[in-house]
């Protein structure tokens, strides 16, 4: 009955949002022989993975500054190198700075990291290789989960049980000690986890930072250990990734778009979807803000779950039970973004004197948040609706490896500032944005005293900007908390983690689905597989 009513002019697939997952889904569905149409509300494709001109002549990754990294299969299967994607390999993964002039460099190579740790703590230097190897092993055991469609725990079928059995066998292969660690680490407070391995505060804090990045959590919050395991599943490391592309994050999106187009997808910008059209519980297209109606056999949303379910759908389409669960989906943003255009490279006290060696050390991610208490205090403020007096900063200077982003000799700096809670206890972000920017600069000046005088342009994006400009409901960078209760078979909701929705022919493919989080493309890839499975049957 429904099929007979499908508009003859209907598109195969309409994808809401040209974020990287939307583009990945478009490319795979095009590869399968469909003709997807991607609709992007902004004039710029990429969603969270964009390179914006923040000041005339200065281009900067406006939101995310590293991929998660992007899954290697996606780069291969979509031939992204041919479409212009070039990865940059920083020598340092994370450089942690302490206000007393200490610095600590974490490399992908554990032995090299351990050597650097020697002056800080001989004990930590000895422990680091086993720490790195342990997370590499745990990550490898968990990795198959990432590309898997989570089981429907509520009504597990034979296939789901088989998947879980396979996973169980793989985990048993870890050996008793690692299996225990796996079970213990996920629900642990990351501060405890780091303290079990290491004694120096700077290293503990650097490790712990990955557990709280973009989350409404401090290092003492239970369950923050899971983020380290998730990162390890992606690339074998427990620390923040430094996966940069030439041309900034936007270059990843451009390569994905080029690949999708070459495979037959169409991408329209400036096309804001205002509503998903649903009839009799079946999605049959979208309505644009302009009033234009586009019929489609399948609608895929790369928007976050709250935006999709609570804003793009008429509430009457969903059961009140589902809606209230969705309203309880946690996505309160805590990250602000500060992008700076700098006349030259700032001098960091910890690396003085500056030189090519200093520049190499700075080329990965830079962590500011020198001890566990500092990070917890930063979170404390957010709990009570205030921005941190001394924020935890995660930054990078993309121009060190990619000088083309700024005029010769000049640089851009991309800073995630945490915590800046979406909902302020007093005042609103419009009135407090400048103060936030000043606070971030003040904190930075502790580590790079000459930085304030080098600024030629600055952009401050609060969680409210993340919501309004980038369409992230609640201003949450990761499309919702990536916590134990909202991961895997629980992302976004238990029973609805298979990229399908309560509305037939409506799918989700964004970071609010498994494995979610950063710029990996896996949500889009997994979603496209499920969509194709349904269309074929």
């Amino acid at each position, binding site marked *: 009955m429904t099929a007979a009513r499908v508009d003859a002019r209907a598109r195969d697939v309409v994808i809401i949002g040209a974020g990287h997952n939307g583009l990945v889904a478009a490319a795979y569905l095009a590869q399968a022989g469909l003709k997807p149409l991607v609709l992007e509300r902004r004039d710029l494709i990429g969603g969270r993975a964009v390179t914006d001109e923040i000041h005339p002549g200065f281009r900067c990754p406006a939101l995310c500054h590293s991929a998660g990294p992007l899954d290697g299969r996606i780069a291969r299967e979509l031939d992204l190198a041919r479409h212009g994607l070039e990865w940059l390999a920083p020598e340092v993964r994370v450089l942690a700075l302490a206000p007393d002039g200490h610095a600590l460099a974490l490399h992908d190579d554990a032995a090299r990291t351990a050597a650097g740790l020697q002056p800080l703590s001989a004990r930590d230097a000895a422990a680091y290789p086993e720490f790195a190897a342990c997370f590499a092993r745990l990550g490898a055991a968990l990795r198959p989960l990432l590309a898997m469609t989570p089981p429907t725990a509520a009504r597990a079928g034979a296939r789901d049980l088989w998947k879980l059995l396979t996973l169980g066998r793989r985990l048993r292969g870890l050996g008793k000690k690692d299996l225990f660690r796996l079970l213990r680490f996920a629900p642990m407070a990351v501060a405890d986890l780091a303290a079990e391995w290491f004694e120096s505060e700077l290293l503990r804090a650097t490790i712990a930072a990955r557990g709280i990045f973009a989350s409404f959590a401090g290092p003492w919050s239970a369950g923050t250990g899971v983020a380290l395991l998730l990162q390890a599943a992606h690339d074998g490391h427990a620390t923040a990734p430094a996966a940069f592309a030439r041309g900034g994050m936007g270059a990843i999106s451009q390569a994905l778009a080029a690949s999708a187009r070459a495979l037959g997808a169409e991408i329209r910008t400036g096309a804001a979807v205002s509503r998903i059209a*649903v*009839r*009799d*519980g079946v999605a049959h297209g979208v309505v644009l803000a302009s009033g234009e109606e586009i019929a489609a056999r399948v609608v895929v949303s790369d928007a976050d779950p709250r935006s999709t379910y*609570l*804003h793009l759908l*008429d*509430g*009457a*389409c969903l*059961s*009140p*039970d*589902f*809606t*209230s669960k969705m*309203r309880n989906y946690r996505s309160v943003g805590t990250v602000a973004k500060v992008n700076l255009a700098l006349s030259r490279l700032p001098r960091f006290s910890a690396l003085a004197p500056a030189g090519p060696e200093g520049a190499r050390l700075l080329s990965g991610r830079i962590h500011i948040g020198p001890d566990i208490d500092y990070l917890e205090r930063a979170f404390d403020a957010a709990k009570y609706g205030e921005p941190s007096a001394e924020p935890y900063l995660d930054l990078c200077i993309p121009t060190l490896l990619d000088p083309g982003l700024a005029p010769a000799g000049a640089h851009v700096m991309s800073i995630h500032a945490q915590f800046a809670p979406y909902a302020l206890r007093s005042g609103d972000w419009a009135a407090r944005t400048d103060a936030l920017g000043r606070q971030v600069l003040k904190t930075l000046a502790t580590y790079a005293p000459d930085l304030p005088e080098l600024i030629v342009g600055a952009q401050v994006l609060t969680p409210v900007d993340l919501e309004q400009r980038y369409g992230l409901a609640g201003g949450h960078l990761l499309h919702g908390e990536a916590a134990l209760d909202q991961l895997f078979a629980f992302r976004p909701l238990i029973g609805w983690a298979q990229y399908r929705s309560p509305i037939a022919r409506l799918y989700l493919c964004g970071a609010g689905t498994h494995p979610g989080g950063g710029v990996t493309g896996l949500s889009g890839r997994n979603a496209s597989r499920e969509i194709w499975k349904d269309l074929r049957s």
Partner: protein
Amino acid sequence: MPIGTAFHERTLALCQSLSYRDWSGYYTVSSYEPSHEHEYNAIRSAAALIDVTPLFKYLISGPDATRFVDRIITRDLSKVAVGQVIYTPWCDEWGKIIDDGTVSRLGENLYRWTAAEPNLRWFWRNAPGLDVKIEEVSERVAALALQGPTSARLLKRVAEADLDGLRYFRVTSGKIAGIPVDISRTGYTGDLGYEIWVPWDRALAVWDALMVAGAAFDLHPAGMLALDVARIEAGLLLIDVDFASSRKAVIDAQRYSPWELGLGRLVALDKPAFVGRQALLAERTRGHARETVGLEIDWPSVEAVYEKVGLPPAVSPIASRVAVPVYRGGAQAGRATSTTWSPTLKKLIAIALVAREHASPGTRLEMELTVEAVRYRVHATVTKTPFFNPPRKTKTPPD
């Protein structure tokens, strides 16, 4: 412990029987006199004044009020004019009835909604994304039912309102004793009658005006026992007796669809979206398993049982809310949920829930009758409800 309604001061003084019950936390008169028979007769032959304040009452307003109400109820609001009142069920997402009540369209986007049970949370849960104001006005609005053949003439005497033009299931505003009231031509008796919606703090003056003028129309205050007989005659269902809210159900058999309650005509499946629509569409295709019907119990068969026992036939004047088994042949076909002697019809009647194959009018069934603690079966015939449906109920202008 219950509390009094806005009319408690008056009803307490009149309640000779001191026979009260708890209705949603309020003291409610069961019968004013030791027996409810005069009160019943007032409903059918004169006029009765019934305090129905304990109903849950909500006021829905705001730009999306119509969308909001339409999203929840099973009926189609686009067919309801301003000034119209509808009786409607509303369902959960599995198409099972949560509650029933009346919705009065007081303005383009203004509704007064009555319900048997608290619904505020359910309303809130259905409000996301809508610009709607939901107010519980249960303690701000008192309500009286004025029911019976002389009710229109009495009301015309005391109310400043266009009552001649007020059709069945319509609402108008007016004044009684100078107090602004809403008057709807609705009720729970199946007779000519009105419900009067009064500001809580001025309720007594309205009661007094009606009682004073009512003397000339043989007005009696009436309690729940009389109302219960009348509502069964009218074939009107009572929650927790003839059906249960799906919210309280423990097993599936305790969940009821509109079709099972004979309310299928109130389900507007052509409405694009409302809670439960998908499930109700499926049920329409699949067919419902049970049906609510009327039963007329064969009186000679009752007499035969009593004769066998050696007793004169007797039947309680009070309606029974005890469910009793209903059989066809040797097997159980369902259950009678409300049973009463109808003084007007001179018949023993019941509302029953039976498997669908036993639901067509004329089907001969048997109902359990217990005499001296021994179970017997008496013959009963499936009939259409209402059992009693006088033309005066809907006649406009009223007599």
